[in-house]
């Protein structure tokens, strides 16, 4: 009888863990924004609240184990996004180098560079939200939460997600604008400095000073 009760309880807890993991995965994938998935702050809030409710039924050891699994779940996605971001950074650097040897910047290439820049900024926003959500989730699961703290964390994450939605909207606008824009030398220069293809004015000046000293040119 006791044995059966233990098995029943054990099975129930396993189900809770499984459910929390599924909810965490769904939450993680909401940020992915692929296909027809859309980011919905209400859904994020709901999912976080459910997780906070469920986690209170688990023991310390179970919570710790679950927190590690959630951490891995998010880390997997974060690593992929970081890889894509790095790859786009290498691509934009290469294209900026190419444009630095052009007298007249081709509109198509300029647009491509701006698109890559938008994509990189989008990855930055996605990474920021994923990292924040992961921290909130891991914290919630590991330590267990009382309803007030849980709610505060939900509010905190909602703010992060809202900021992300705003960033997305800004990028969508920027994307439409840049398609109609001509080539802007200033915008290009800013990008060259941002991605380290061109040295910022101050660094270039110091470098020049060194060269002048090296070749004995008087100031």
């Amino acid at each position, binding site marked *: 009888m006791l044995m059966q009760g233990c098995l029943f309880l054990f099975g129930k807890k396993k189900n809770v863990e499984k459910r929390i993991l599924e909810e965490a995965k769904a939450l993680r994938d909401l940020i992915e924004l692929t296909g027809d998935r859309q980011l919905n702050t209400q859904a994020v809030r709901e999912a976080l609240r459910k997780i906070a409710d469920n986690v209170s039924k688990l023991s310390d050891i179970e919570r710790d184990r679950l927190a590690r699994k959630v951490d891995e779940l998010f880390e997997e996605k974060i690593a992929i996004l970081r890889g894509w971001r790095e790859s786009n950074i290498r691509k934009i650097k290469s294209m900026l180098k190419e444009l630095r040897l052009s007298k007249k910047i081709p509109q198509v290439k300029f647009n491509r560079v701006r698109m890559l820049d938008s994509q990189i900024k989008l990855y930055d926003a996605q990474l920021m939200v994923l990292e924040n959500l992961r921290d909130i989730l891991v914290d919630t699961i590991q330590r267990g939460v009382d309803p007030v703290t849980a709610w505060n964390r939900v509010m905190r994450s909602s703010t992060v997600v809202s900021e992300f939605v705003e960033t997305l909207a800004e990028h969508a606008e920027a994307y439409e604008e840049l398609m109609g824009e001509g080539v802007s030398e200033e915008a290009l220069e800013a990008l060259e400095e941002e991605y380290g293809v061109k040295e910022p004015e101050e660094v270039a000046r110091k470098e020049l000073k060194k060269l002048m000293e090296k070749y004995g040119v008087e*100031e």
Partner: protein
Amino acid sequence: MSVEKSYEYMMDSLRRIIEFVREISVEWWWFEQGKIPIIRVRKLEVNKNISFEYLPKRPVLDALRVIYSNFEQIRKLDPKIRVDYALKTAQDLYLVLQAISYVIDAHGLAEKIHEARERIAKINPEALDEFIDLANSVIQRIRELLALNVFSWPSKRKEIEEEIKKVLEFAETMPIQEKAKEEVSA
């Protein structure tokens, strides 16, 4: 090692090569990030009949993907004829890898031009247009040479190196412009 394991090992190595080339080719700023078609490979298609025809010239990364697909297709063939196609595909792979090594070599030279451009921009921005004309003519020549016949690179390399030397000399002998000196003083 079993046949199956050897095959998996080879395919895994090919995937690694493709990933490596994908990563480095992004940095070939002077070569459309590796998108310029330079090499012909044969594509194996196994349907009712077997076809193994040369494709038009394609970028190195695409060529590697064709080779990968050929090795996948080869498994479907009768072991008696498999070896012949495998050998021919391996020959193509060898040529593609050779072509990649030439592009990597050319990239090293092109990078020198980029460094010289940055120097000119610092010390004498007014000479930049003249430098860009000079540099572009060499870059264009490397691009055309590789696109026309990538395997001619070893015989033409010396010539290209000489041209690049001239470009670098132009940058090195450029006097520091008064305006640049003033900016440093400020």
